[in-house]
């Protein structure tokens, strides 16, 4: 990004740390151990001080005392330094101890990267972190003697504007750094990050999205089973059912199956009545069959309803776009008579009865396995297949996204790599 490249002089953390701490006259006072930055608010976090060893003691050097930071040395404004111990303040992290060599989220690529080097520069009058190096050369440069470090040109620069560091391991009392950049990510990307990260880092991502319960539920829907289990284990039954209430019924049912058997009944009991009924219905079926895959949210009217009534129903139902793409009609015995696509319904003439425009539809029984459903969808170009019971009563619908997810070869599933390079 322009700011970073326009900076006259990029400093590498690993070359600053270990350098001399000098007073205003250039006398060596001690050794620079680490730099402190404040992670809150500003796009490029400013250096808030340094930690140094002076005469065998670790001291804190506040930023007001620092005149200049250079590779190999940090110079002070004053001749002397008050010996004060380093104590973490709010949102402060140590660059070397807490960030270097650790995982970060590359928000633009939605992947995890490792900070092989931290780059900073003088911007707007003060030293700020401008980015990290995630390339292999950044790492190699740290392995060679300092004298030769400048000979290695690095290529893995990543602007700090695209970086969100994990801070959960920083041992301060309730140090909670917000992760505003995560809001840019899609729930599926957040779920992939949670899957790639360690449990603690994943918990940090969840903590960051927890402010938005809908988003949290969306991330959960996208999460792979093992990880769902990992993150519901920490939650109370009430918290789990709150989460389930916000999820699609079929995903919620799958999640219930991830719970230990002794918890399931209680969690389902805590659900709001409607969702509870749906989840219970779904749990009665083998999850790899149409019955287990189906969503009980669909639109079905009596066949003598008018086109306008049907459209009105679509408009006011909470059924999602996929589910509402078909409208079904049943007779007075609740037997399925047929269906019509929403588009055709809209294009139909005014004032016709639904029974006049619906056509017979292909259906499956709840016991049909996933291959059968997939075949039916392929053969008849369907995105939605209705599931009917033995008495022809419509029980639910299977949408193509639920099927695709299961029939996709395992290797195709990850949308992007979480690898450092491209």
């Amino acid at each position, binding site marked *: 990004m322009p700011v970073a490249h326009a900076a006259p002089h990029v400093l590498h953390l690993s070359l600053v740390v270990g350098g001399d701490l000098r007073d205003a006259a250039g006398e060596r006072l001690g050794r620079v151990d680490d730099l402190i930055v404040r992670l809150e608010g500003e796009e490029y976090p400013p250096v808030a001080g340094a930690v140094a060893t002076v005469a065998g003691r670790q001291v804190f050097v506040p930023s007001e005392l620092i005149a200049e930071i250079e590779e190999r040395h940090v110079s002070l404004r004053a001749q002397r330094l008050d010996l004060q111990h380093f104590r973490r303040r709010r949102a402060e992290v140590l660059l070397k101890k807490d960030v270097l060599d650790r995982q970060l989220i590359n928000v633009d690529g939605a992947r995890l990267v490792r900070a092989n080097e931290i780059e900073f520069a003088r911007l707007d009058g003060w030293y700020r972190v401008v980015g990290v190096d995630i390339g292999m050369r950044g790492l190699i440069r740290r392995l060679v003697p300092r004298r030769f470090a400048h000979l290695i040109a690095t290529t893995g620069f990543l602007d700090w504007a695209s970086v969100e560091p994990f801070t959960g*391991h920083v041992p301060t009392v309730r140090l909670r750094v917000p992760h505003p950049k995560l809001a840019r990510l899609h729930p599926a990307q957040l779920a992939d990050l949670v899957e790639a990260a360690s449990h603690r880092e994943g918990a940090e991502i969840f903590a960051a999205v927890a402010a938005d319960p809908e988003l949290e539920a969306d991330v959960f829907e996208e999460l792979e089973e093992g990880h769902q289990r990992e993150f519901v284990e920490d939650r109370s039954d009430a918290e789990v059912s709150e989460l389930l209430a916000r999820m699609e019924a079929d995903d919620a049912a799958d999640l219930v199956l991830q719970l230990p058997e*002794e918890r399931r009944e209680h969690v389902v009991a805590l659900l709001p009545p409607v969702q509870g009924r749906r989840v219970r219905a779904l*749990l*009665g079926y083998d*999850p790899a069959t149409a019955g287990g895959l189906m969503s009980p949210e669909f639109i079905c009217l009596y066949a003598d309803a008018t086109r306008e009534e049907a459209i009105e129903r679509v408009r006011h139902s909470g059924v999602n776009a996929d589910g509402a793409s078909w409208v079904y009609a049943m007779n007075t015995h609740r037997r399925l008579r047929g269906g019509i696509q929403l588009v055709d319904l809209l294009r139909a003439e005014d004032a016709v009865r639904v029974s006049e425009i619906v056509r017979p539809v292909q259906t499956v029984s709840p016991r049909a396995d996933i291959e059968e459903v997939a075949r039916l969808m392929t053969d008849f170009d369907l995105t939605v297949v209705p599931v009917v019971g033995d008495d022809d009563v419509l029980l639910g619908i299977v949408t193509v996204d639920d099927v695709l*997810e*299961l029939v996709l070869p*395992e290797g195709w599933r990850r949308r992007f790599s979480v690898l*450092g390079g491209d």
Partner: protein
Amino acid sequence: MARTVRALRDRAVRGGSQLRPRNRATARLAVLLAFLGPGLIAANAGNDAGGIATYSSVGAKYGYDLLWMMVVITVSLVVVQEMAARMGAVTGKGLAELIREQYGPRWSIFSTVSVLFANLGICISEFVGIGAALGLAHVPAQVSVPIAAVVVWLLVVRGSYKVAERVFVAMTIPFFAYPIAAILGHPDWSAVGRSIVTPHIQLNGPYLILFVATAGTTITPFMQLYLQSAVVERGLGPEDIKAERAEVVTGSLFANLVASFIIIATGATLFVHGDHTVNSAADAARALAPFAGRFAEVLFGIGLLGASLLAAAILPVTAAYVIAETFGLEKGISRRPREAPVFVAVITALIAIGAAVAMVPGVPVIKLLVLVQVVNGALLPVTLFFVWRLARNAELMGAYKNGRIFDLLAAATVIATSGLSVVLLVVTLSGNA
């Protein structure tokens, strides 16, 4: 999103609601069986071709004299492996990753390079072991080794973690051949019992070297590295520590019981009949036939085949885990080559080189293993020291750090094992081995 039809079917309960708990006892057994995994695999991968050769020569040379030591080694192994497993569960990170984060890239690169070389060396010896085991059945190595390599590669690269783990666990079944072979050797069980409880030390060079080599082959750096990474890939968390601990103890006990039975089998036959030299595991099998019968030879061969196959799969995987963790690359047995190119490339390279070298007639396996011993001897103290330091680190482990008494035991284990490993290193380098 990564749901699979198979996984869903595994859980499907046909008929009846899935809200009702199943029978308690079967549930408990299922939990126990389901937990057989990283701990058992890591400990038993230590009983590889080189390990069997060492245990066989211990038995052939000194009878049951060194059996008491297996008790001590078992405790040490449990202590070390438990720390690695606990760290994996608590931090969700592999050992190499933690070393990089806590001690910087130099140490992690040192470990990485050492593991890569050591594992390549051992990997060659495993494929030699596979060739030798099937050689007992007159299958030439040029046929058996490539087939084994392809099978191992497919399992590790194409299989899911769950499937691979199941197969690894199943690969420990051939180890039951050793207790049977030991019984066929008609050992004097009362002498065996006495040797287990009476520490016995001879102060001479060859005895001490074998003593140290036994410790070195039972506690090897790759075992901690593999265990911790596998615990992470399995997705275990702090709540699983109890169960995983039980699994580590069971696995270590089983592995060292097997090792003891190897010592008993050769002690009851080769030692008693004055045949004191064993150069390889296949040698031991052949030498066993005249005293314990042809069946004992077959059993030893089966054990060797299983052991070598297991280790030939685990060693490349460990090297790949370590490299991926050190450089922050995508990793995992369940990953396809496209998803984790470096991970798969490392596995492929180790298997390919291991198998190719093993097919060359007259590979100096012994010399190779000596070289490996040197690398491992330098690496083990480093690995163990880091395992211990990290497992007692309150910042990292929180409430799960080493308890006070356990920490003392761990320190003693690390110092003693590292000491022995340095002794072996010095002895090997000075050419007395």
